[in-house]
């Protein structure tokens, strides 16, 4: 059983006991424990179930590479799924739940999948697609859906807050082990601004666990002194609990600081996401131990040898009384020695190497530990925990020589440098045969804006494995980075004595001639249940690319992203393909290094400050008057102004009727307003619009269309000629910024010798549409200027004052009624709006919102950008040929519209539709045509683009595109509906109201 030792534990404080709960069971640990250490101290070996087969799983590792021990942490609004117990700091009151089991961790029904394993081979998911369709829909999909997903989605809104911060430095050191600290000491001494990131809550990494001696003393002593020296340097910043997540272009790095994960609810942000820009980056990210592939290597109690050592030395936790060590290298002997020195039993060290000669094996032997050279584990015995191993010859096929009883297995297949951050932005790797791992290729580093290296890998992360070499390499890297950032640095390294280690021997399958039955129990990817046999099957089925094999078998696709399984998996693949490992290569390393919670990525951008909110000068009035808002771009516009007892639809209909019969007021401030000015402004607008704007007389308005170069309609609006060289272009509410940028693009990049200025003055002006038969009466009451038909006819504008406000009045109408659109300085918008309401009360003035606006324009057959257009519609499709100049030699979109497909008479064109039963055609409906297409889908001949109940006509009206357009008037067509069934409608003229346009022109 796993338990707490009575002595030792360099990271724990035995005077501070902490209570926590696992699956509701109360347990105790110490301050300084990780949750993993505390669980093991309480003999909780079984911590979860695997994804596919629901096999019992225990803790394998002691760090971020842990694949098995994921828990749901916290409760309610602080619940987080998929938290690794090995990187979770224990705190008093912590509550954790194991995942992926039903009904309980101890008794899981899903484990039945285990006995069905031969029906769930590699590529299982893809194979299910191949069978008859009915099998997927009725058999496989329900089963996969039932078991899919790891962990539970939090149900409540996150109670915590997250923030983001920026930082800048000359040298960023990622990793606070001895390599990172040494590199930081050298770079810091040069005067460079240095930031050091350490993902865990302790400096120094694994050196103290390995018992390394530095400068004649303990590693702990040197680490303490180094941290003190660095913290006294003003140019150095140390950040603990801060994981370097990703390296991006030009020295940009994301880092996730776990500010209060271990002190939840203390008021501080939970995480702080650092956005760091560094001139040079040092990756001192260490190495991760590889498992060995033997049958039953996934049973609870089988752990990485280095991690067993971590638990013993750091937390005084023993994974078992009797631990068998299995290895292909000398390093694992340190674990055997540490266990022995802690008073625990090591029945045997099983070493796959035929000859064992190193210093560490000699020391182990001297401690009385039995060493079996050239041997292997044939199989691990046990169910929910290890009970023993069977010994066999590594060179053989797995014939059992002997059973060895034990309750833990410490395995080591060698160490792989953490090359993720080196690789994120293009750093290449080289295969190191001696250590059987990929390490950074210094000749092909990630490069920065100047084309020179921007990342330096040091220490274990650089494939340098012994302590003296690590320190020397780190000092070199610190100096290289500081120099590259423009500082003078000297690579002075601390002295250390390394223990000589004999060569390791690559072992990818144990024993090497293992039978298919054994290989089907050798796990590569623990979390996703991918075994040696699955990868070999994929190879037999023709998957030769490592990227394809990954996706086919799901190897390395779990939340640990293959930190343990990567090298072993591709070694097995290479062997199956009869290729060399470097030729097979690795899959792509992508950020983040370990998962970053979405909260940290969102930061403070949630709720009201999710995105900027644009408000018109009248916004406060709308709020006070119960406006129901809708988003229009970043604007919020009143959709309608419901009165007591009214629903939205009733309010909209009242607003339409009131505007058509009395007086409506619309806040039109969001309308885009762009000034175009200069000697070449007319010529420029003639290129931009399909019509002619240069000929527009001063004082007049003209409707215009803008197309993109492909000829598709992009925006519309009324243009007013202000003076000889000034035009004011109205754009759609959402389109002002886009159109302004479009203008600038052409002016700066194509016609840069044309003398034109543009200014987007949308927010400088408030604009109100005064609409309805009583509109003129209201303005005359306010007084100050002549607004009669004679002085200010339709489609003209004039400057003046109204009720004391300086105004510019446009006689334009989007509703089909007598209408004045009146602009005032934004600062007067609210006052002017209120003055209109006050004076307009006697004429029946009411505000109306965007929905009434939409209905009234649809009743008039006016198009709306985004309704009638979708980026594939040309003005000709909307019967707007009249707004396209035939005389102009060129305008943006003219050449595009000449393409034969756009000039085809078969295009769907605009028409109006009236349902026979008066109902409203559902949004998104298509007009059905006879027959079926090649895919067996019903043919179509058109679609609806705008559809409303017209309160004016008291029936459903619609606009839409139909093959043949207006030539189809009188035809009866059928629209499909989402719910099935059809709606019959008659094709009509799209102008439903005041066809001759008499109403606005009074």
């Amino acid at each position: 059983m796993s338990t707490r030792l009575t002595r030792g534990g360099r990271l724990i404080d035995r005077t501070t006991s902490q209570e926590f709960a696992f699956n509701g069971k109360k347990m105790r640990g110490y301050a300084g424990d990780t949750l993993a250490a505390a669980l093991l101290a309480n003999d909780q070996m079984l911590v979860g179930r695997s994804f596919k087969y629901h096999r019992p799983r225990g803790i394998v590792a002691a760090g971020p590479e842990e694949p098995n021990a994921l828990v749901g942490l916290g409760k309610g609004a602080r619940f987080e799924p998929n938290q690794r117990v090995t990187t979770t700091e224990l705190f008093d009151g912590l509550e954790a739940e194991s995942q992926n089991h039903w009904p309980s961790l101890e008794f899981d029904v899903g484990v039945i999948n285990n006995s069905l394993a031969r029906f769930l081979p590699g590529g299982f998911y893809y194979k299910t697609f191949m069978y008859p369709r009915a099998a997927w829909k009725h058999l496989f999909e329900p089963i996969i859906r039932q078991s899919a997903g790891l962990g539970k989605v939090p149900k409540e809104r996150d109670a915590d807050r997250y923030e983001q911060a920026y930082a800048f430095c000359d040298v960023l050191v990622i990793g606070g082990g001895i390599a990172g600290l040494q590199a930081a000491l050298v770079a810091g001494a040069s005067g460079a601004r240095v930031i050091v990131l350490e993902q865990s809550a302790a400096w120094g990494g694994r050196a103290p666990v390995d018992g390394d001696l530095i400068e004649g003393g303990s590693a702990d002593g040197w680490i303490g002194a180094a941290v003190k020296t660095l913290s006294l340097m003003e140019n150095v910043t140390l950040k603990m609990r801060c994981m370097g997540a990703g390296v991006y272009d030009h020295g940009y790095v994301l880092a996730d600081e776990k500010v209060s994960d271990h002190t939840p609810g203390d008021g501080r942000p939970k995480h702080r996401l650092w956005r760091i820009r560094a001139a040079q980056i040092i990756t001192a990210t260490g190495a991760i131990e590889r498992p060995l592939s033997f049958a039953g290597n996934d049973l609870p109690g089988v752990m990485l040898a280095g991690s067993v050592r971590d638990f013993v030395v750091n937390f005084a936790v023993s994974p078992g009384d009797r631990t068998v060590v299995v290895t292909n290298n000398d390093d694992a002997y340190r674990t055997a020695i540490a266990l022995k020195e802690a008073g625990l039993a090591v029945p045997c060290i099983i070493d796959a190497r035929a000859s064992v000669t190193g210093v560490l094996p000699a020391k182990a032997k001297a401690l009385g530990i039995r060493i079996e050279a050239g041997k292997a584990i044939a199989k691990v015995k046990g169910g929910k925990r290890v009970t023993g191993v069977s010994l066999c010859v590594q060179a053989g096929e797995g014939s059992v020589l002997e059973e060895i009883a034990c309750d833990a297995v410490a395995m080591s297949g060698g160490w792989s440098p953490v090359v993720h951050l080196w690789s994120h932005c293009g750093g290449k790797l080289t295969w190191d045969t001696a250590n059987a791992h990929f390490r950074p290729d210094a000749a092909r580093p990630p490069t920065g804006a100047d084309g020179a290296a921007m990342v330096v890998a040091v220490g274990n992360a650089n494939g340098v494995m012994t302590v003296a070499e690590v320190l020397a390499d780190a000092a070199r890297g610190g100096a290289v980075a500081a120099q590259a950032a423009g500082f003078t640095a000297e690579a002075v390294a601390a002295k250390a004595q390394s223990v000589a280690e004999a060569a390791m021997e690559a072992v990818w399958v144990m024993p090497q001639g293992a039978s298919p039955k054994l290989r089907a129990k050798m796990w590569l990817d623990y979390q996703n249940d991918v075994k040696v046999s699955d990868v070999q099957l994929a190879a037999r089925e023709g998957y030769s690319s490592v990227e394809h094999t990954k996706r086919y078998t799901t190897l390395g696709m779990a939340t640990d992203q293959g930190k343990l399984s990567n090298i072993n998996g591709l070694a097995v693949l290479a062997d199956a393909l009869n290729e060399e490992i470097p030729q097979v290569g690795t899959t792509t390393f992508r950020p983040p290094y370990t998962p970053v919670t979405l909260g940290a990525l969102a930061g403070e951008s949630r709720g009201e400050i999710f995105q900027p909110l644009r408000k018109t000068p009248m916004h406060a009035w709308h709020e006070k008057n119960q406006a129901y808002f809708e988003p229009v771009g970043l604007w919020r516009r009143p959709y309608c102004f419901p009165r007591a007892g009214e629903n939205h639809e009733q309010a909209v209909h009242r607003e339409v009727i009131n505007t058509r019969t009395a007086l409506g007021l619309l806040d039109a401030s969001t309308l885009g307003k762009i000034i175009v000015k200069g000697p070449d402004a007319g010529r420029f607008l003639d290129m931009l619009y399909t019509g002619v704007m240069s000929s527009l007389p001063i004082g007049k308005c003209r409707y215009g269309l803008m197309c993109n170069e492909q000829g598709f309609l992009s925006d519309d609006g009324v243009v007013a000629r202000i003076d000889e060289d000034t035009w004011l272009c109205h754009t759609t509410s959402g389109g002002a910024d886009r159109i302004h940028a479009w203008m600038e693009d052409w002016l700066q990049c194509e016609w840069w010798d044309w003398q034109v200025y543009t200014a987007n003055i949308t927010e400088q002006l408030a604009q109100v549409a005064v609409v309805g038969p009583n509109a003129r009466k209201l303005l005359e009451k306010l007084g100050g200027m002549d607004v009669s038909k004679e002085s200010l006819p339709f489609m003209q504008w004039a400057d003046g004052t109204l009720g004391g406000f300086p105004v510019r009045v446009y006689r334009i109408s989007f509703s089909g009624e007598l209408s004045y659109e009146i602009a005032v300085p934004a600062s007067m918008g609210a006052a002017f709006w209120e003055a209109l309401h006050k004076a307009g009360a006697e004429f029946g003035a009411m505000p109306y919102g965007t929905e009434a606006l939409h209905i009234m324009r649809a009743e008039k057959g006016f198009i709306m950008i985004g309704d009638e257009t979708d980026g594939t519609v040309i003005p000709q499709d909307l019967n707007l040929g009249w707004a396209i100049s035939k005389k102009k030699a060129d305008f943006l979109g003219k050449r595009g519209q000449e393409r034969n497909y756009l000039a085809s008479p078969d295009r769907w064109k605009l028409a109006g539709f009236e349902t026979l039963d008066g109902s409203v055609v559902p949004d998104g409906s298509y007009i059905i045509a006879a027959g079926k297409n090649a895919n067996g889908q019903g043919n179509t001949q058109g679609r609806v683009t705008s559809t409303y109940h017209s309160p004016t006509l008291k029936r459903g009206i619609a606009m839409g595109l139909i093959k043949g357009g207006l030539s189809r008037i009188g035809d009866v067509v059928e629209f499909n509906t989402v719910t099935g069934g059809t709606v019959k409608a008659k094709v009509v003229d799209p102008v439903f109201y005041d066809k001759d346009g008499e109403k606005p022109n009074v």
Partner: protein
Amino acid sequence: MLILECPYCGVKAEETELSPGYEAHLKRFGPGSSDEEFEAYMFARKNPKGVHFERWRHVYGCGKWFLAARDTNTLEVFGTYPAQSSEPPADLQDKIKAKRPDWKGYK
């Protein structure tokens, strides 16, 4: 997250301050051009792995469009220059040739 220096205001702008405008030095083909010319202008893009000329706008800065020469593979930036340029400046072309002897020119 590239950093490009705006040749107008001199600011070393991060990508979030910029908006991309894709390939630079395209020649516009309008009415009277052949289908092939128009198709090439509208749709055919080089998309090279290597030296590339791009349009960028310093949208959250001075608002000016500029052009940038960079290596899409190594992310090296060779230089930036005003959009009002019919071709890349000669010294920039020389610099690129010196660094990338195999470069075939911007056209």
